[in-house]
């Protein structure tokens, strides 16, 4: 086991903790040292649960209209009220969470993979490859995210696959810079040189020595990217470039019925707005807490 891998295990296990599953130990430490982050983690878990089981949790269908109960304020039968077509807002929020989970995890996953591939390759090999790819990354990062998103979606059209691929590429390419920085530090470690001198192949070194040691960064990057992607998707939906109706997304609920009927039914804007705020905030504080606990440089601060 390399030094850094050992360090990560120690971090996950807690230096003085008795032997137990490292993930459990890590979360005990999270609750103890970062209670706000832990609350964020719980909210994140609730969000995941709602998204994954929306089909079972939602009391009504996502586009189950009933014009006779339109624009009803929150009540026992409709906790978040109904919209202008008589659809249950809570159900739409839950199905919206499902879409957010799908888009958030797929796009953040894709972004992370792209970041790892680009970051590891450019950071490890350096030289012309690094120079060429990172100048492209520089150019890419000069474009404002939203403008780039709007242009591409306008060309390829809205839809879940398109949004996942575009957001994945957008955040993946930019995120490669973070992975690259870690890899540059790791490649100079003694155990990497040792592996090289014993004749280990480059793929072997990348997979078994470099990659495990950037995992803490990858985990944090992935977590924060989930929040960013959910927010970006909401922004696109707000502009009418997100997932087409009748699929509910929080962004489209805000921009469509939320604003149009905000005087007649303020809950239509409040419900998706609050959910979006809480989830993104929760993910961000959870991500921050993870970074604080996993990043060796943050230790002791």
């Amino acid at each position, binding site marked *: 086991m390399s030094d850094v891998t050992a360090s990560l295990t120690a971090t996950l296990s807690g230096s003085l903790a008795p032997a137990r599953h490292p993930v459990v130990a890590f979360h005990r430490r999270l609750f103890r040292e970062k209670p706000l982050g832990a609350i964020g983690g719980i909210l994140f878990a609730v969000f995941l649960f709602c998204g994954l089981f929306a089909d079972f949790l939602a009391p009504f269908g996502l*586009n189950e*209209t009933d014009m006779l109960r339109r624009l009803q304020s929150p009540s026992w039968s409709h906790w978040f009220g109904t919209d202008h077509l008589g659809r249950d807002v809570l159900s739409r929020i839950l199905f919206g969470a499902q879409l957010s989970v799908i888009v958030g995890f797929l796009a953040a996953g894709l972004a992370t993979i792209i970041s790892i591939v680009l970051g590891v390759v450019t950071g490890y090999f350096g030289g012309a490859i690094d120079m060429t790819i990172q100048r492209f990354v520089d150019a890419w990062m000069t474009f404002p995210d939203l403008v780039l998103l709007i242009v591409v979606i306008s060309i390829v059209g809205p839809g879940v696959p398109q949004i996942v691929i575009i957001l994945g590429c957008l955040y993946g390419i930019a995120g490669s810079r973070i992975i690259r920085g870690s890899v540059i530090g790791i490649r100079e470690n003694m155990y990497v040189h040792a592996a090289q001198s014993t004749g280990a192949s480059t793929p072997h070194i990348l997979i078994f020595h470099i990659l495990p040691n950037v995992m803490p960064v990858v985990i944090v990057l992935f977590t924060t990217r989930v929040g960013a992607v959910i927010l970006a998707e909401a922004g696109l939906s707000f502009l009418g470039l997100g997932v087409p*109706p*009748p699929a509910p997304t929080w962004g489209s609920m805000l921009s*469509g*019925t939320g604003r149009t*009927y905000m005087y007649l039914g303020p809950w239509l804007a409040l419900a998706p707005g609050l959910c979006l705020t809480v989830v993104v905030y929760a993910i961000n504080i959870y991500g921050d807490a993870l970074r604080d606990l996993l990043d060796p440089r943050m230790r002791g601060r």
Partner: protein
Amino acid sequence: MRVLLLLSVLAGMKVWAETPQYGGDLNVGTVNVTLSPLSWDPADWTWKSNHDTGAAREQLFAGDLDKSIRKGGAYPFIADAYLPTESIRGELAESWSWEGDLTLVINLRRNALFTDRPGVMKARLLEAEDVVFSYNLIDQSPKRIPTYFDHIKNVYARDQHTVVFEFSQYNAEWMYRFGYGYYSGISPRELGKVDRKDWRNVSGTGPFILEKYVQANAHIYTRNDNYWDQETIDGKQYDIPFVDKLIYRIIKDEATYLTALRTGQLDILEAMRWIAVDHLKETTPELKWNRWLGTSGTFLSLRVDQKPFDDVRVRRALNLAVNQKEIVELFYGGHAELMAYPQHPGFGDYFEPLADMPEAVQALFTYNPKKARQLLDEAGVPEGFTFNVQVCSCSPSNMDLIPLLESYLKKVGIQIIIQPMEYASFLSAMTTKTHGPGYLLNSGHVNPITTLRKSFVTGQTWNPSQYSSDYFDEQVRLLHLMRDENERIEVLRALTREILAEAPYIWLPVAYAHTAWWPWVKNYGGELRVGAVRPGPIYGRIWVDEKLKADLGFD
């Protein structure tokens, strides 16, 4: 004594306040506030050309605003492209007469002046050759609508101020086709030598000059100091236009343009949905209002050239599956008419109310999902089917309505996949006939004959269902030849009944819209068009009471 003094001061103030003033800016959110110009080139045959250039580019005929309801007349000037004959005045045509049955002679105004346009032309008077040029420009365009000018054999200048139209056959719509219609703007001959697609080259004799176009933001017009026409107010004649600048704002977002009105950024907002009205009336009681029945029909077009919509039973089933009455009462809050398309109630005797229609037509407007399922069974699609529906994201109302339609259709086993599209690509899909099997569209009523011709005659550009019937085509052709209006009305009513029963669309209710303007906008009563989507001359006659505006807190 004090009361008398106060009354005299108030009376004096009123006289002072109502005396037209020159200057100021007029900011308008037009009926098409969400749409950018489609093209500045008249040869592109874009329906919006009059809207975008009609304040600068004039036509042979226009609506006579002296006959508006506001001035004691009979005409509201709301229709998108219908001017009853009695409401028409010559704009660039000073007078006109027929020589025989088929030769129309038009004498042009001698004082209409094309403005100086750097890079295009020096200022000069309108000539008959300009009218000939303008006609040929669109007639020879590859984008011309089929059959549109088939009734015209020849157009030529008899002398400098007289233009002659020789007809090959009479056409009941002659005044609309190249008089006040969508494609009737008169440009100078010099336009033939410059880039017509460049807004800087838009030239005309109108009350305004297009000074600037900011992409997707605004068209800015300045006053034409040499405009030929005048406006009579309280018996006194005034040179027009009154305002220094006319600005059409382009605002794509509904909440934003409503806010722009409320904050005085817009002086006039010509079209808003009913849902915004009550709140605006509460928060901004100073606004003046006009309510009008939409001048475009809303429908979900079904491509009859594709399966399963080639079967009339399927099309009727889809109509029966949609609860039209519920849409009127609950979706539109009662602010809609159940059946007001393809004919508009404002078309006088051309319009036949639903109650007078045959039972087969009335049934299409009655919710009957059971019968819908039965028809689908008979048509061989008992399990239902899935089809794509394209919708323009530019229409907040349609974007709200489409999930409701999805829900209705799902109840009879039909699934729709909604494809929102940006306006340019949405329109282009239809004009190139590459649009999907379902196409949720708002299409102008235009006028009684055109609404049938453009929407249901074979091969027409604005025929989204691709409806085609030799019998129907022939009847519409004959309709254009009829000089007797009563005869036209009879035939037209029969054709309307027939096309309604054929159900090439899911017929949907037509909603009322509301126009609002601030009280400092004077000499205005909510008129919207005096030609085919052409509001320009209306704005040329508006003056802005700057003092009242300041008194209300909007400097």
